[in-house]
């Protein structure tokens, strides 16, 4: 293949640049997860607190929405959704391109194969990502798009949640979902920082790895606390 691109253009299209894009969008998604998790915990205080928070997010509350009056009433949630959607789409697109390149670089599989370093999380990053995407759609459908049709009382987010997590099998599914998220985050977090060039020593590698486990654990505990509280009847 004869390339007519300049080195600069090739660098912009390189796997490393793609990975940097993936890392950045991944970190944005992790930041969102942390915020989301924190918000969920409001239900532990009371249903009213939770509902108030949810309405405020969407700019439906009396106190006005986020960043009002800097941006008009009701706009923030859409800007935010577009932003998150873009992050997710870019993340997935980069993943698909990188996966295709990896696929093309693999002529045939080894007859015998043994891994020395790879963690389970690293190995399942791609497949895990695909499953996560599917579960995410279902999650959004249930709690954002058509919550009222699923169950609960329209306009009262706490009711959808309490209804759903009142079921043990539902909590179980959710736990599996969160497990996958955290696995993905575990490898993704450290991998993102490596890709962004932070991991340039043995020490940095260690710190990043510990941080990655911490964040994953934090997310799992944070996300599971509320459903378990609902299932246990502590919140109603």
């Amino acid at each position, binding site marked *: 293949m004869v390339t*007519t691109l*300049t*080195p600069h253009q*090739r660098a912009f299209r390189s796997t490393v640049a793609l990975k940097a894009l993936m890392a950045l969008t991944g970190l944005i998604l992790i930041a969102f997860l942390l915020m989301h998790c924190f918000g969920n915990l409001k239900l532990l205080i009371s249903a009213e607190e939770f509902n108030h928070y949810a309405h405020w997010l969407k700019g439906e509350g009396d106190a006005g929405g986020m960043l009002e009056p800097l941006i008009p009433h009701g706009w923030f949630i859409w800007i935010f959704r577009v932003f998150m959607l873009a992050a997710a789409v870019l993340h997935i697109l980069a993943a698909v391109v990188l996966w295709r390149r990896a696929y093309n670089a*693999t002529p045939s599989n080894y007859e015998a194969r043994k891994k020395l370093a790879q963690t389970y999380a690293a190995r399942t990053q791609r497949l895990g990502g695909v499953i996560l995407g599917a579960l995410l759609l279902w999650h959004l459908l249930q709690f954002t798009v058509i919550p009222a049709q699923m169950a609960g009382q329209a306009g009262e987010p706490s009711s959808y949640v309490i209804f759903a997590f009142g079921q043990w099998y539902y909590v179980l599914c959710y736990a599996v979902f969160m497990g996958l998220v955290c696995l993905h985050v575990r490898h993704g977090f450290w991998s993102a920082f*490596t890709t962004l060039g932070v991991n340039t*020593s043995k020490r940095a590698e260690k710190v990043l790895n510990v941080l990655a486990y911490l964040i994953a654990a934090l997310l799992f505990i944070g996300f599971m606390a509320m459903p378990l509280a609902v299932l246990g009847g502590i919140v109603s």
Partner: protein
Amino acid sequence: MSENLMSLTLRIWRQPNAATAGKISEYKLAGVSSDMSFLEMLDMLNEELTVKGEEPVAFDYDCREGICGMCGIVINGVPHGRGNSAVATTTCQLHMRNFKDGDVITIEPWRATPFPIIKDLVVDRRAFDKIIASGGYISVNTGAAPEAHANAVSKLKADRAFDAATCVGCGACVAACPNHSGMLFVAAKITHLAMLPQGQPERPLRIKTMIGTHDELGFAGCQNAGECAAVCPKEIPLDTIAQLNRDLIASLFNRAGKSTAAE
């Protein structure tokens, strides 16, 4: 000194050439001494095959002291048989005392699209030379060098440069990588030259051209799985890849290589 003899079953990838499909063939080999190196064991098999009039197994080797980077075989699913060795090793420095009587050993070539198989266990690794040719050097013509002490180099940076520069270019990193990325190889050269004052003027352009060539040759991206560093006979650390990433991202904000492809 505590030599013992063993009988082995060897499952070896046989492939006459790039165009013909390969398959695993099984061979029994008796009287293998634990003091032999892995390649001497294959020599022994080849001597037996030759006497029987069969085609010997083709495999690459040269220095047999772990420095030239010519040898490279996937042994029991791990490049250079690292899975059978307690220490980092090239195939030629792996010894049969790491195996035991009755073992079944699977022996395969590097598998990666940019390393096409030539015959049996021999692959074509010229892609690595092309990556170096695209920028893995400091441009200094013979005779144009300043006095060696013109630049002092901090010992820490000189040592880091050295650690990266020990890469032997064997390709085990590519063979072990789940994606078949050549990133550790590129990163070793990037880190080596980036640590030295002499390497600075070309630093932004170097990473652009090397990564561009790496991708163009069909090597894929890094997933930070760490398999490459785990099998590297010279233990090039994984953090060199972070150095590469950092340099590449920084280079995107640099004008080097913007005007022409042939700059």
